[in-house]
């Protein structure tokens, strides 16, 4: 049996714009992934805890609030503290190029910006997992 890719789609912080997160979640489901959706307004701690218990391969964070430079490092740090660095972190949202470079350096694997086609995201995830 082919290993199922499990991914957690999270909306950290107070940002309520869940259109992108939901579209991505539906697209990933339609690509055969098991998608854990944690809902809105999540603490970084809850997202990391959920990712560990669900044994996901990837955490995908959607951040449109401008808080990305606080939240991504926090998630990476928590994963490290909990010995869960094997979980890959990717993201999407309103994030300037300059910040993307910094986030990639910190250990975020990939950032998608508005307009990224869902099939590109699916293809990317499959390519890094298999």
């Amino acid at each position: 049996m082919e290993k199922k890719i499990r991914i957690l789609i999270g909306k950290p912080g107070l940002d309520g714009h869940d259109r992108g997160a939901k579209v991505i979640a539906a697209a990933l489901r339609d690509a055969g992934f098991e998608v854990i959706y944690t809902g809105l307004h999540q603490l970084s701690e809850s997202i990391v805890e959920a990712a560990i218990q669900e044994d996901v391969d990837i955490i995908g964070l959607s951040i449109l609030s401008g808080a990305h430079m606080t939240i991504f490092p926090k998630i990476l740090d928590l994963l490290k503290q909990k010995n869960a660095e094997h979980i890959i972190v990717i993201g999407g949202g309103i994030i300037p190029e300059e910040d993307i470079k910094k986030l990639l350096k910190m250990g975020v694997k990939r950032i998608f910006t508005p307009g990224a086609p869902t099939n590109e995201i699916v293809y990317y995830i499959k390519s890094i997992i298999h």
Partner: protein
Amino acid sequence: MTNLQNLLKADKITIARAITQVENGTDPKLLEEIFPHTGNAYYIGITGPPGAGKSSLVNAIVPKLLENNKKVGIIAVDPTSPFSGGALLGDRIRMNDLALNENVFIRSMATRGSLGGLASKTKDVALVLDAAGMDYIVIETVGVGQVELDIAQVCDTTVVVLVPESGDAIQAMKAGILEVADILVVNKGDRSGADRLILEMKFAFELRAHNTDWHNPILKTTAIENIGIDELVSTIKSHKEHLEKSGKLEIERKNKLTLRVNELIEERIKSHLHEYVIDQKQLKKMIDKAYERKITPQYIIDEIAKKIF
């Protein structure tokens, strides 16, 4: 073996990984290893139609189960899309209050092709949580609208949740409800129609001929406001006590084990048949012949049976 030790210590990463291996069938030895350490948890099933508030109810009862430093494992099952094989697992949204509790472990499972209320591996995943020292294991079924009988084959106490709006759906599933419900809950009990539904279900339970000394209680809750939750939890606990005192817990668990062993034997035979006995190419040829009405299906079966018996 260190993995087993970590598992027994309830290390969350180890538990999570073990569940994945059980779910994917990638480590057949694992279940063997953990089995001696299981049998200590009490299994509670939560089932009911979509929109009945199953996840909210779990979110509400678990804090009470956690009292006295108990540990609770939760398995929430959601359907796999038959078209893509993917699944959207969203039950955690409702359980956010529990997300950071040290003594809670929540795992979402997709049905992966199973047709009932559970995934085919849910029982094995529950064993992992059992071995990891959970005192209670709460299993929430898919909730596809029909009664999911498989839950009762796993759980010691099965709670069926209905809402006043389930109205028509209930008629179709009444027989099933009566069969599996140790406890019946009418959630969103503040809505109109709740009391009528309770009366209706009471009547149905009374009509049913039964020789049991457990009189299936019907409770009213409003899970999101925490109303009726204390009573539900104490009813679950008195059902547990009832099973223990009457010796039924042992009888029923042996029945469940028998059922499980039979299931596994069948699975084993089936996979043996398909892998070693039946020559797929030859079968295809025979099917072609049967399609042309040159041989009969019975003839094919006899041919295959010859190889076994």
